[in-house]
């Protein structure tokens, strides 16, 4: 069955530090992968997506993610976090044909000043 795992429920980093949020997926075909961010009281905002081609994708707000087929991973990174990055981050895979997203559990990011 298709699934997405985000192993870290909660991560705390200091402002200015680098960040990596982990995501592993299970999907039989070539995956379409997404990272969404949810700030308190807001909807899910698309940060970036991977469909094909270059395995390193750039997104909004200085985020990037790398698709590694051999590891079934799509980790999200940012070289230097800002206090405004504190939010919940969701990784998702699109189930083609059904046109539905399957989400991971989410990772809550806290930024220390």
């Amino acid at each position, binding site marked *: 069955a298709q699934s997405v795992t985000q192993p870290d429920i909660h991560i705390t980093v200091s402002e200015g530090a680098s960040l990596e949020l982990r995501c592993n997926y299970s999907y039989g075909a070539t995956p379409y992968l997404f990272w969404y961010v949810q700030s308190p009281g*807001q909807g899910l905002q698309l940060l970036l997506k991977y*469909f094909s081609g270059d395995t390193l994708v750039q997104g909004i707000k200085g985020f990037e993610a790398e698709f590694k087929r051999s590891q079934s991973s799509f980790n999200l990174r940012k070289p230097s976090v800002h206090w405004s990055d504190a939010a919940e981050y969701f990784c998702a895979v*699109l189930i083609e044909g059904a*046109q539905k997203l399957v*989400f991971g559990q989410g990772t809550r990011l806290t930024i220390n000043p």
Partner: protein
Amino acid sequence: EPEVTQTPSHQVTQMGQEVILRCVPISNHLYFYWYRQILGQKVEFLVSFYNNEISEKSEIFDDQFSVERPDGSNFTLKIRSTKLEDSAMYFCASELAGYEQYFGPGTRLTVT
């Protein structure tokens, strides 16, 4: 920038009552979705809607649930007889094409 809107932001209802959650998708979008997130759990797919009919639904989306696009702008989710376990955040999403789904801020449904 166009966005998906949802009303109300919070709905409290008694068990057994009917509720309608409303969404206004982005105006030129063609695909519409409902997802929900029970507190502490994953965001999970409920239903997708295209060309005025349901294109896919999950096992959660039983006969108690229905969706409608009554006037070409609103997209509604109706729960006929709410249960305690329906308490969740409900997200609407819309998509033009190309697999990018845009989400609304959600409606928190509390069933007492």
